[in-house]
C-alpha cells in the first residue's frame, strides 16, 4: 500500500501553501507515515481515502497540516547553542542593556516551546537581580502555540534533553504530564507568525533563535526570511541557526563568528537611511 501520486501532490501543495514547507518527490513515505494514524482514527481504509476527505473537510485539513509540519524539538537541543548563550551571548546582551536592564529574545519557529523554556531556565539562573527578560515565541502552527501557552509536556518529551535537576526545579506533575512553573511561563509570550510572509510589527531582539526551520524552505524563501530577520536583530545582537543551517551562503549583511562550538551571526549595520532610525517598538 502506498500513497497515490495525486494524493501526494495535493498534500504537498496544501502544506506549501500554508507554511512554505517543501515536501519534495521522494518524501511520499513520510507523508504516508504521518497521515496513516489520522486516516485510521478517521476510520478511512487508507491514506488516499483520507486525502479525499481532506479536500472537503477544513477541520481535518488543519489536523493534517499540524501532523505534516515537522515539530521535532527537544530541551537544550544540541546543547552547544545554550552553552554559547550562557557563556557569551547573554553576558554581551547584559553589557549592552545596562540602561534599560531588559533583555529580549525571540524564539522564531518555537514548536511546542522547549527552546523558549530552555532559554527561560537559563535566564532564571543567570540574569542579574533587578533585570527583566522577555521571550517571544512564534510559530505558524496555532496548535503548537497552544502547547507553549499550556506549558505541559508528556513524559516522553520531558526525557528529551532536560537535565533532571531542571525537571525537579521547574516542573510539577499534572496528571500524566509535567507543567512548567508559572515563573517561567510569565517570561514567555506567544504570537502567531508565518516566517514566509511579511512580519507583523515586532520589536528588535538581543538574541534570536531561528533553528531547524530554514531547512524546510527553498533558497529564495530562506534568503527572504533572513533579510527580514536582519532588521529585527538589535545592533550587536546575535542570531543562532540550526546546526545544519550554518553553512548557508549568507549575504554580506551578516558576520559570522565562532562562539564555543557554534556559529553566531551578527547583523552588519545597513548603511543608508534606515541605519540611523531608532528601532520601532511595537506592542507584543
Amino acid at each position, binding site marked *: 500500500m502506498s500513497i497515490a501520486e495525486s494524493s501526494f501532490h495535493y498534500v504537498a501543495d496544501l502544506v506549501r501553501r500554508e507554511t512554505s514547507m517543501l515536501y519534495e518527490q521522494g518524501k511520499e513515505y513520510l507523508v504516508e*507515515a504521518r497521515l*496513516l*494514524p489520522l486516516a*485510521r*482514527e478517521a476510520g478511512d481504509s487508507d491514506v488516499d481515502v483520507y486525502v479525499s476527505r481532506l479536500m472537503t473537510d477544513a477541520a481535518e485539513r488543519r489536523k493534517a497540516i499540524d501532523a505534516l509540519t515537522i515539530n521535532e524539538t527537544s530541551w537544550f537541543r544540541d546543547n552547544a547553542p545554550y552553552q554559547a548563550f550562557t557563556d557569551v551571548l547573554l553576558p554581551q546582551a547584559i553589557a549592552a542593556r545596562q540602561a534599560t536592564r531588559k533583555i529580549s529574545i525571540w524564539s522564531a519557529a518555537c514548536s511546542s516551546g522547549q527552546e523558549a523554556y530552555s532559554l527561560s531556565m537559563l535566564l532564571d539562573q543567570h540574569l542579574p537581580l533587578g533585570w527583566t527578560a522577555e521571550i517571544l515565541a512564534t510559530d505558524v502552527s496555532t496548535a503548537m502555540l497552544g502547547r507553549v501557552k499550556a506549558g505541559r509536556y*508528556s*513524559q*516522553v518529551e520531558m526525557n528529551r534533553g532536560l537535565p533532571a535537576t531542571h525537571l525537579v526545579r521547574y516542573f510539577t*506533575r499534572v*496528571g*500524566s*504530564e509535567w507543567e512548567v512553573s508559572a515563573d517561567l511561563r510569565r517570561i514567555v509570550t506567544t504570537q502567531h507568525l508565518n516566517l514566509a510572509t511579511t512580519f507583523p510589527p515586532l520589536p528588535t531582539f538581543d538574541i534570536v533563535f531561528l533553528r531547524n526551520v530554514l531547512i524546510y524552505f527553498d533558497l529564495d524563501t530562506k534568503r527572504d526570511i533572513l533579510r527580514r530577520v536582519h532588521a529585527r536583530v538589535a545592533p550587536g545582537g546575535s542570531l543562532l541557526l540550526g546546526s545544519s543551517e550554518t553553512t548557508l551562503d549568507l549575504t554580506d549583511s551578516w558576520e559570522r563568528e565562532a562562539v564555543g562550538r557554534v556559529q553566531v551571526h551578527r547583523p552588519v549595520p545597513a548603511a543608508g537611511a534606515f541605519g540611523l532610525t531608532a528601532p520601532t517598538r511595537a506592542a507584543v
Partner: protein
Amino acid sequence: MILEGPTYTDLHAVVDEVWSAFLGPEDPLLPALPDTGLGDGVTWSAATSVTGAWNGVVTVEIPDVVAQTATERMLGLAPGEDLSTEDVADAVGELVNMIGGNVKSLMPGPSALSLPLVARGTIASPSDLTEVSCLDLTWAGSPLRVSVLARRDVPARATDKQESA
C-alpha cells in the same frame, strides 16, 4: 468511601506513550468497538500492584499475537523468530511495569510498586479489588485491555461506630 482511580484520559496517555515508544508510532492505539472482547485465542495477562498511600493493581491483557510482536520489537528481533516463553513473559512484564509505575505517579503517594506478575491465560483478581478504570483498545487489528483496580480497604475504625451510636 469513593475508590479513586486515574482518569480515562491520563490512563490512555500513559498506555499510548508506552506503546508508541516501544512498539513504534506507526500503528496507533484505537478505541475498541463495544463488546469486541479479547477473542478466544491464548491471552497473556500481567499485573503489578501498588501499595502505600494508594492501594491497587494495574493489569494488562493481550492476545498472543500482540505479546509476540511486542517481544520481537523490544528484543530487536525480526518478525517470526523463535521466542521462548520466558522472553515473552519478560517483555509483557516490562510493559505492565511501565504502565504501573506511571499509574502510581498519577495517584496520591508515596506508594511502592511490586515486581510484575505474568501469566498465560488470565489472572484472577482478589475479591477485595474493584475496577476503577478500564481501557479497551485495538492495536494493529488486535484487542488489548488495561485495567486499574483499587483495593477496598475498609478502614476498621470501630471508634466511628461507637461515636455515632
